[in-house]
């Protein structure tokens, strides 16, 4: 695990200086709706158990560590 992953490294390319075409508001709205439909579909998908299991394991590990370590080392 590296701290580097937590930092924001990408340089600003200054690409906001170009002239932008303006989209019709209705087109923007339509794209916005599709974007939400795409994202909400993903957000509403059931969460795989493995993530909850992983976090429960991490928490249990930390509790054991702070309690001075006990039995049941599963990670």
């Amino acid at each position, binding site marked *: 695990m590296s701290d580097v992953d937590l930092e924001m490294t990408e340089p600003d390319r200054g690409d906001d200086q170009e002239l932008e075409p303006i*989209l019709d508001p209705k087109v923007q709205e339509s*794209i916005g709706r599709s974007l939400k*439909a795409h994202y909400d579909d993903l957000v509403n998908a059931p969460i795989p158990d493995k993530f909850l299991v992983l976090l429960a394991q991490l928490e249990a590990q930390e509790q054991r560590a702070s309690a001075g370590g006990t039995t049941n080392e599963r990670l």
Partner: protein
Amino acid sequence: MSASDFKDGLIKEIPNLRAFAASLSGSMQLADDLVQDTLLKAWGNSDKFEPGTSLRAWLFTILRNTYYSLYRKRGREVQDSEGTYAERIAVHGNQESHLDLADFRKALAKLPEEQREVLIMVGATGLSYEEAAEICGVAIGTIKSRVNRARTKLAELLSIGGLDDLGPDRQSAAAVQRTGAEIVRL
């Protein structure tokens, strides 16, 4: 923040992390690997999270950096060999919106990553332009510019450039593409 509170916070963000990761990588399988890595890193670095700031923005930063440093190449390979994830994960909703969604996702997958990620962030996740700028490490103006270009490119890919292409009852930009591609307009 206790470990238990932090854990609960992470659990709440898992759906958003998966959705963002899938949008970024184009693969549900890669998305889940990416989310797992992100959770592990977040847990290991929980002391660096400042309570009171946005946990979502913090997690997105980790996820995004993990993606660009480790997953990007793999993502391309997966997409090349399996096609996009669009057909495989669009399982909710009715049949018609299912098809529209698949079309939209194909177009979304064609955007440059730097445009796709910001469009998702500000257009779907509830993150602000400021937060998106911080996550990407660029100026707010750059985020605005990328969002504009992403929208323009999507409109082009979905053939919805003009007013006439958008009836008031359209549910989705993608729906228009089906007819728009077949009917010659003035």
